[in-house]
């Protein structure tokens, strides 16, 4: 029997002209599914959620789902989200950004949003490449990988997005991959539940570009790569820095209480 009661049917836009823009084998669909499940489990409804995105493959997501959605400019999702939250504190504001979006062109907005601690739940879909523009290297592309803009190998080091968020002051920071969907569900629930600026980095596969550059030529190979390269926070604690190189540490990386921007603002001005 067809499973017609899947929550995704409740949240997809029926008026939107499908199909979506994502390539076959892309990881963003898995993320979207997880997001919808998490929202469905939460206390929020369609009307009090604002989904804000930047520019890129993952940032096309809000177009397909039935919330208040804003597809903003490249890297600036957090600036719009800040304005929305301050003007209408009752709304649950969620941002969806890619790696290039969040930490390259939007890097400054990202660290300041973490420092300021405005209540925004921020999901960063990290596919380690600029997919939409044709596979150029991003600040999350691993060192040495050949791309169209690093044809001789990437000379730069990649950002550890979670470490950056934690250092900038984000109270909740976590990471999962699209392979580890059960963990992803758990982390998304926590992130949606937390007050303040919470960050979940979701490592995703781009088989069209990133996979090709890394020599992983099918979605299955990429999924296997995600599986084999990931290890939990607890395991990582026992390992030395050298052994952790190139590995993906998954789980909750920071979870601490900090007063939010709005709480502090109220305290000072009222």
């Amino acid at each position, binding site marked *: 029997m067809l499973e017609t009661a899947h929550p995704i049917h409740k949240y997809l836009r029926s008026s939107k002209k499908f199909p979506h823009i994502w390539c076959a084998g892309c990881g963003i669909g898995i993320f979207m599914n997880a997001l919808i499940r998490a929202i469905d489990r939460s206390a929020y409804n369609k009307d009090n959620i*604002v989904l*804000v995105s930047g520019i890129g493959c993952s940032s096309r997501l809000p177009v397909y789902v039935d919330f*208040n959605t804003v597809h903003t*400019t490249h890297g600036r999702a957090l600036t719009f989200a*800040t304005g929305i939250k*301050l*003007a209408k504190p009752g709304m649950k504001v969620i941002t969806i950004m890619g790696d290039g979006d969040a930490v390259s062109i939007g890097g400054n907005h990202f660290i300041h949003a973490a420092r300021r601690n405005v209540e925004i739940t921020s999901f960063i879909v990290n596919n380690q490449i600029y997919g939409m523009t044709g596979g150029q290297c991003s600040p999350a592309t691993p060192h040495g990988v050949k791309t169209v803009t690093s044809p001789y190998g990437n000379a730069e080091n990649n950002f550890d997005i979670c470490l950056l968020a934690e250092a900038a002051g984000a109270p909740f920071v976590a990471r999962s991959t699209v392979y580890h969907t059960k963990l992803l569900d758990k982390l998304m629930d926590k992130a949606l539940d937390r007050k303040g600026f919470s960050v979940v980095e979701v490592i995703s596969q781009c088989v069209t570009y990133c996979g090709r550059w890394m020599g992983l030529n099918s979605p299955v190979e990429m999924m296997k790569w995600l599986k084999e390269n990931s290890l939990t926070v607890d395991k990582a604690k026992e390992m030395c820095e050298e052994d952790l190189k190139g590995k993906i540490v998954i789980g909750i990386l920071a979870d601490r209480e900090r007063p939010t921007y709005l709480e502090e603002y109220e305290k000072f001005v009222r």
Partner: protein
Amino acid sequence: MKKPKTAKKMMTYRLLLQGNEACVKGALMAGCLFYAGYPITPASEIMETMARDLPRVGGAFIQMEDEIASLGAVLGASLAGAKSMTATSGPGFSLMQEHIGYGCMAEIPCVIVDVMRGGPSTGLPTQGAQGDVMQARWGTHGDHPIIVLAPSSVYECFDLTVQAFNLSERYRTPVIVLIDEAVAHARESVVLPESGQIAIEERPRPTVPPEWYIPYADPGSGVPPMPKYGDGYRYNVTGLCHDIRGYPTTRKDEVEPLIKRLFSKISKDAERLQWYDSYFTEDALVTVVAYGSVARAGLQAVKQARDKGLKVGLIKLKVLWPFMRHTIVAVMENSPRILVPEMNMGQISREVKRVNRGNCEVLTLNKYDGTLITPREILQRLEEIYPC
């Protein structure tokens, strides 16, 4: 105790205000409830005054990490339902251009004040200029409509800020207020109207139930109604070309009507947007066309010239964009010569020349050294070019 009859009138606000402060008074009068900004000379007083006054009326103020973020937050707050503004100067205005385009495309009302200083680049941070006229018009990429107002006094800083909010709400578009540094920093004694004495406009709101709401369908006025968040009207906002439901499109039969509507919603009202003051223009053989601080010097010069028996007049422009073609063409029919004094290398004079049908001579007086154009300089130029 019996109060004298005039007591109330005397108690109405007579204030000694700076142009920048008057701007804030205007914004608050218009119902502004959100300000995001980044400090910059010579516009910082707007931000400082907002930081102090906005929380008192229940609004929110935030200092963002840069001007790009400032206008992003302003657009977000406006989408959420709050009248919003920011203020900056040339270099910050350049950074805001990306989001001005977004505001035009997604039709998000907001007000941007640009206190002009000498440029290009860091230029002359503490000195005046009128060099951003073309940046205000064409700064963001792509074809787009824009409304730009230019006050020439402290009172007009107040009044035109109120009107900037009104126009941005009426047309759902970013409106820019261009103030030159001399006006922004001038202190003048002004009497401000009380609330209720000045008309305040609100953006059109949907009247249909949410399931019937089509966010970018033309209701006839060219300006689709705009809901606020939380009211059940869920729709998609994007900077991409979009169809009437707000979804990205590349279909030419959807793109062309969108771009046309963005322009026509403002251009159809061009005759309503002819805001100017005219002085001694009925019999003028030379008419001065000026705006901002230069219009003040221009009026002084015209009065002095009249004392000397010269038939000269002045048109003070309050709207710079859309360019007041109707007004200028009418001036050209009566006046054989036009003088456009400007604190730049000729930005509005270029427009005046563009609309000239050859029956008028357009002359300029340009200054770009950071100092003001004085009445004496305009008078000298008038005497030079006066037809004898």
